[in-house]
């Protein structure tokens, strides 16, 4: 292993150890009465052991909501972006509202969603969908309309059909933009599912997700378990982002400048 590579593993590990040490130090310096405010790292691990089954089930439920919402947002936003990019008229008409909807705090609609489709997975999926949808739609549309003018002219010169132009030029050219949107959506999906579950979750059926667990643990003053819940959501987010980054690397690394290697 080369020295820079070794350092890039060693330094983050050291920083992590330092962080836990500071955490522990603050904890022991707190007076007995306030220690409940900051559980020790060992207590969080103990909470994982104590509430393991519960947390695992909640994590799976949240994962289901996050995944369904994320994937449906990808499918619908991509279709909509294609439509928007095909017709300047449609784009001019609807694009401002797309931007406006992006500013809308989706969570405000959670109570109404519960009335419409009932609490639980359906509501959580829809909330995640709405949160993921806009960054995806905005970025993908931007990508589809930003095709290099000269390349479009080249395709016209070789008498490419409109279908060929979309499939072989506009979509590949939009991929870097699409992945930018996908990265944003991947960080939002687990948080969206958790917040959705917090406001529209349900203990019925398979039981709630991590958001629902948050309500229960805070009402029972199980603070170490709250930290464990946060860690579980963190891990879920990490898996989402890592998945998208890998997909992005697989698709783009050979040709896109953002993956330029120094040795070329």
């Amino acid at each position: 292993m080369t020295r820079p590579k070794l350092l890039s593993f060693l330094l983050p590990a050291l920083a992590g150890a330092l962080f836990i040490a500071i955490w522990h130090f603050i904890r022991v310096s707190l007076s007995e009465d306030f220690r409940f405010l900051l559980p020790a790292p060992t207590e969080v691990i103990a909470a994982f052991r104590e509430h393991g089954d519960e947390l695992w089930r909640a994590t799976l439920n949240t994962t289901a909501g996050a995944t369904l919402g994320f994937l449906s947002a990808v499918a619908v936003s991509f279709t909509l972006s294609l439509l928007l990019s095909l017709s300047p008229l449609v784009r001019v008409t609807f694009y401002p509202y797309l931007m406006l909807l992006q500013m809308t705090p989706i969570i405000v609609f959670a109570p109404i969603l519960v009335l419409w489709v009932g609490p639980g997975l359906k509501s959580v999926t829809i909330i995640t969908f709405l949160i993921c949808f806009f960054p995806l739609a905005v970025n993908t549309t931007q990508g589809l309309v930003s095709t290099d003018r000269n390349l479009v002219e080249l395709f016209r010169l070789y008498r490419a059909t409109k279908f060929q132009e979309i499939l072989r030029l506009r979509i590949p050219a939009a991929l870097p933009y699409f992945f930018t949107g996908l990265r944003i959506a991947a960080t939002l999906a687990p948080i969206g599912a958790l917040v959705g579950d917090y406001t529209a979750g349900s203990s019925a059926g398979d039981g709630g997700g991590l958001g629902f667990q948050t309500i229960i643990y805070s009402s029972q003053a199980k603070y170490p378990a709250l930290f464990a819940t946060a860690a579980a959501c963190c891990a879920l987010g990490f898996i989402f982002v890592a998945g998208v980054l890998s997909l992005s690397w697989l698709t783009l690394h050979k040709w896109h400048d953002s993956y330029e290697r120094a040795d070329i």
Partner: protein
Amino acid sequence: MSFTVTTNPSASASTAVEFRSVEKRYGQGPVILDAFSLSATRGDFIALIGPSGCGKSTLLKLVAGLSPVTRGELIFSTSSAGNHLTNAPSSTSASARDDLAYVFQEPTLLPWLTVAQNVALPLDLRGAPANPRTALVRDALALVGLTPRADYYPRQLSGGQKMRVSIARALVLSPQILLLDEPFGALDEMTRDHLNEELLAIRERLRWTAFFVTHSVAEAVFLANRIIIMSANPGRLHREISVDLPYPRTPATRRDPAYHRLVDEVSQLLRSVEDLATV
């Protein structure tokens, strides 16, 4: 709008393209190209040179069919005696513009395709079967000396190499007419000279008719057998200079006193046109 493009088999067999009093304007805008008449003989290498705004790039777009003629006629004569790369299928019955290729100012390569895939693009878009396609791409790459780079992506190439790929892509359809819009303008002088020599070497094998837009007098004299000096506002044919330096031209041509005389002559004519433009 009368967009007259005729394919005229009865025209002189040696004529490739003929402009008859061609006028071009965009909408109600100013006249870009005025009463432009020119007859290009098969195998001609015509350099178009002139101040900016003289309509030389517009002229290429008209020939390419990217933009319609406003008035006048643009006549193509078809010929079955096309110049084909080895293994090429025989000329199709499609219109004259299928035998035409365009090299842009920029390499305009698709960054997500390899060099070979970029060169294959015009064939792919026409749904060419894999059998002649592979051979055609290989031959086109060999012509520009990029066979070892076939599987590279554009970002791994230098500016000169990218331009070579662009030229290979233009040649893969075995065009009879080649339109080049300042293809080497962004390259350093050494690379440009080298690519000029390569272009002429390819021309020895495939005798297309070329229209070459440039700002460099030296490049025009080195490449062309006819130089069209244009004036601006509106774009008109100002003077035609015929370059009687024998082909094949080599680096030695650049040391020929006749070459230098021509460069001087064209430069002076160009300066007089540019002075006119600034008055």
